[in-house]
């Protein structure tokens, strides 16, 4: 304060700066303390709700009690997290009990209010909850969310729509899946988890047929993860019509190999001499998985392909053929006309020999050193 009475301007300015810094530090500290206090209060509330509701939720899986504790809006948020976790941990008729609990705690009404919340994570919580509750009254809002800029929000909305009414959602999803390049194909496959693999495969395949080659080929490759053959008919039709994209063609051949349906062998064979190297590569790999004895000479021909990767995959495909033995591979290698093709066979022959000999005896590092 003495400094403020001083006549020297520099000192005055210096003192004011110090005061400002002190005030800023005090404000900052108060802010930190306030944030810390809020966080602790939130944590206390979360613990309190969890302590009350975790055992109650377990009980509700069997039977909902007559009387239930009251929930404040803040507590209701924590409850919804617990409720959703419990809902996703179980399957079968026990879920009906949890739905009854949600109705009795008015969680459906609360979630509908949250749907308009400013915070994204609250909106996501509301969508997941209302999806589990199969709340039809928010159908139109969810459909609008499919076009949301936020990919996560739109994917969660799609999952909720599938939970509410899968048959009605599928036609809505086909154009969206084919258009959105920010939707991870793996997430798309996972989204159909509860609906069934066949519906998932059929929807994704139809979406892939409508999509750009970039999105379509990614979707087709991930169709194998559904472990369903329902995606094959739309893709066969697409190839019959004649696709102009080599990416789509290569992805289809990859899927044909993974599914190994004998009806697709002819299509695969027809592409082993395709002008694009990665189409020939996928045809070779697929033949290794689904080919019959007459395909062996076709793969041997590919060992002389101009592209290194095609030669490599053809050698691998030959080694994968079910009737291929270590002796047959050695004989085959001896009959090959070029050194390049023989060299491609060598690693697979070595692998086959190791498999035949069984696992190597483990040697202790110290014994190895001596």
């Amino acid at each position, binding site marked *: 304060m003495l400094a403020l009475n001083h006549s020297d301007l520099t000192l005055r300015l210096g003192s004011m700066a110090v005061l400002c810094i002190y005030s800023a530090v005090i404000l900052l500290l108060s802010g930190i303390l306030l944030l810390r206090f809020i966080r602790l209060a939130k944590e206390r509330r979360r613990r309190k709700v969890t302590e009350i509701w975790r*055992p109650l939720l*377990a009980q509700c899986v069997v039977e909902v009690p007559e009387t239930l504790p009251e929930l404040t809006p803040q507590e209701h948020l924590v409850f919804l997290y617990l409720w959703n976790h419990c809902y996703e941990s179980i399957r079968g008729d026990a879920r009906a009990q949890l739905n009854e609990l949600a109705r009795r705690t008015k969680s459906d009404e609360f979630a509908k209010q949250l749907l308009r919340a400013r915070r994204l994570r609250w909106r996501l919580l509301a969508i997941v909850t209302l999806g589990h509750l199969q709340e039809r009254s928010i159908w139109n809002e969810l459909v609008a969310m499919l076009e949301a800029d936020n990919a996560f929000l739109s994917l969660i909305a799609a999952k909720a729509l599938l939970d509410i009414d899968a048959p009605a959602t599928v036609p809505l999803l086909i154009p969206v899946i084919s258009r959105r390049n920010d939707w991870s194909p793996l997430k798309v496959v996972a989204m159909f988890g509860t609906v069934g693999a066949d519906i998932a495969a059929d929807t994704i395949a139809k979406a892939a047929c409508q999509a750009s080659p970039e999105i379509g080929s990614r979707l087709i490759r991930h169709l194998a993860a559904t472990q369903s053959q329902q995606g094959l008919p739309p893709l066969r039709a697409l190839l019959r019509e004649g696709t102009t994209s080599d990416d789509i063609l290569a992805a289809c051949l990859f899927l044909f190999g993974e599914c190994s349906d004998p009806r697709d062998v002819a299509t695969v064979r027809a592409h082993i001499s395709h002008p694009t190297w990665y189409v020939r590569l996928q045809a070779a790999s697929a033949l290794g998985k689904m080919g019959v004895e007459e395909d062996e000479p076709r793969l041997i021909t590919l060992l002389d392909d101009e592209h290194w990767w095609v030669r490599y995959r053809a050698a691998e495909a030959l080694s994968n053929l079910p009737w291929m033995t270590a002796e047959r591979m050695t004989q085959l290698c001896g009959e090959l006309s070029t050194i390049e093709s023989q060299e491609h066979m060598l690693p697979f022959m070595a692998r086959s020999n190791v498999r035949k000999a069984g696992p190597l005896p483990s040697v202790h590092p110290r014994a190895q050193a001596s």
Partner: protein
Amino acid sequence: MQPATNHKPTVLMVEDEEDTASLLKFLLERASYAVVHAKDGRQAQEFVDTLPTPDIVLLDVMLPFLSGLQVLAYIRGNAAWEKVPIVMLTADGSEHDIKRALESGANDYMLKPFNPRELTSRLKRFLAPAA
């Protein structure tokens, strides 16, 4: 860990997810089983070394420190626990884990999310009815 009473069959439940563990514990205790809860692979290993043999083990695959498959191998390597039935809890779609668990000595598996009724009926197959 809770003390197991003499007249009830004991289930060693190895589950790290607190919410799932609470639910499983409630369902098992309701079906009159005594439950011993190991929160991770390391604690499960410790229980194998120190506790009396339980009547059954309910073992999650995804665990901290040691995976369920590692715990399974440890249990099967212990002479006293060799014959204890083990039911694996595994995520839906992890066929590879299921195959590996059954090959490594698990007796049965249950997929998550699980059906509460199915859980108790599966355990009954391995256990004498609780008193």
